C-alpha cells in the first residue's frame, strides 16, 4: 500500500440517503481513530468526482458535519477534521431530534389524536 488510507464506500441503492452515508462513515472513521484531528479531507469536487455523485451531496454532508463541529472549513485551504471531532461525533443531533419527536408523538397519541391529525399538524409547522 502506498500510504495509510481511509476508504469510504457508498451505495446509491441503500434506503439511507447518500449524504447520510457519508456523514455516518466520516463519524465512524473519526471515532475509530482513522481520521485524526487536523487531517485534511478531500475537496468537495474531488470526492464527488471519485464517488461519481453530485457535488451538492458532498457539500451537504460537509455542511452538516461542520454544523456538528466534526470538521471545520478553513476557507480556500479546504476542510479538516476538528480538533475535538471525536467528542463531537458522539453527539448525534439527528438521533436527538428523532427521540424528541418520538416523545411528542407519544404524548399526542395519549391525548387521543390520530396519526393523520399529527401528520397534518407536523406538515403545517414545517411549512411555517
Amino acid at each position, binding site marked *: *500500500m*502506498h*500510504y495509510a*488510507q*481511509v*476508504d*469510504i*464506500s*457508498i*451505495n*446509491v*441503492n441503500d434506503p439511507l440517503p447518500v449524504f447520510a452515508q457519508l456523514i455516518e*462513515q*466520516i463519524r465512524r*472513521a473519526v471515532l475509530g481513530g482513522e*481520521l485524526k484531528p487536523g*487531517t*485534511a*479531507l*478531500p*475537496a468537495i*469536487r*474531488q*470526492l464527488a*468526482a*471519485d*464517488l*461519481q*455523485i453530485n457535488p451538492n451531496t458532498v457539500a451537504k454532508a460537509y455542511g452538516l458535519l461542520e454544523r456538528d463541529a466534526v470538521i471545520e472549513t478553513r476557507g480556500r485551504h*479546504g476542510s479538516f477534521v476538528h480538533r475535538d471531532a471525536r467528542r463531537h461525533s458522539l453527539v448525534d443531533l439527528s438521533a436527538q431530534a428523532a427521540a424528541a419527536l418520538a416523545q411528542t408523538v407519544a404524548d399526542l397519541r395519549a391525548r387521543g389524536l390520530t396519526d393523520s391529525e399529527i401528520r397534518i399538524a407536523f406538515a403545517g409547522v414545517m411549512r411555517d
Partner: protein
Amino acid sequence: MTPTFQTALITAVFVSQLLVLSFIVPGRMRRMFIALLQRCPPEKFPRLYPVPVERMQRVNRMLNAVNIAIGAGGAGLLVWGLWQQVAPLQLARWLIWCCCAQVLPGLLRLPWQLHVARAFRAMPVPAVRNAELRSWQLTEFVPPALIAGGLLSILVAMLSIGAVIYRGLMPALWAPLLSLVFCLLLLVRMLMVLSGHAPMPRPDPYMSADDLFRVRRSRLRILFTISLALGLYLTFMQAYIALRAPFALVYVCAAVSLLCQLLYLRFVHITKHALAARDLTPYQADAA
C-alpha cells in the same frame, strides 16, 4: 571527428530509430493487447472493452500499417542517402525529420485514445462506489525534486527562447513561438495542479483505489517529467544557437534521436508493468 565517423554514427542511430519506433515498440504494444485479450476475454470482462474489440483491432491494424509504411520509407531514404554519399549533416536532418514522421502514428492515435477514455468514463456507474477519504498532496505522487525541476526547467526555457527572439538570432519565428506557447501550456497546467484547481476525474467507474492512485501518479509524473525534459532540451538548443557551440549539429541530432528511442522504450516498459499490476476483477461480468 571525421565525416566517415559521423556518417557511421548517424547511420547506426538511424537504423536503431527505424527499428525501435516503427517495429519494436508497435510490435510490443500489439503483443500486449493480444495477451490482454487472451487473459481477459471480452465475454468475461465486458467492462474492460467499452468500445467493440473489432473496432479497436481495426484501428490498431491501420496505425500499424502506417508505422510500417513510415519505417519502410525511412529505410529507403537512408539507403538512398548512403548510396548518394550524402553529407552527414544532411543525413542527420533526415534522421530528425524521420523521427517526427515516426511519432506521427502516435499523434494520430490520440483522438482514438480520447474516444476510448470517454467511453470508459461513460460506462454505467455501479451502485456501490469507493473513494479515499483523504486529501492527497502532490508530493505523494511526484517527488519534490521533480516538481521543482519541471517548473524551473520550463521557466528557464521560456526565458532562453525570449532572449533568442529578442536578439534576433532565429531567422524564422514560428518555431520559437510555437515552443513558447507549448511551454506556457505546460506551465499553466503545472500551476493548476499545484494550486489544486485541477481535480482529476476518475478514468472509469470500476477502477480500484490502488489502480486509481497509480494512474494519477503516472499522469502527474509524466507532466513534470515532460516539462523537465522539454525545458532542458529547449534551453540547450537556445544556448547552442546563441553561443554557436563548437560541436557539430550531427551529434545533437543523434542524441535527440537516442533520447526519443529511450522514451518510447521506457513508455512500453511502464505500460507493461502497469497492466500486470492492475486489478481487473471489477471489470468482470459478474462483479457487483
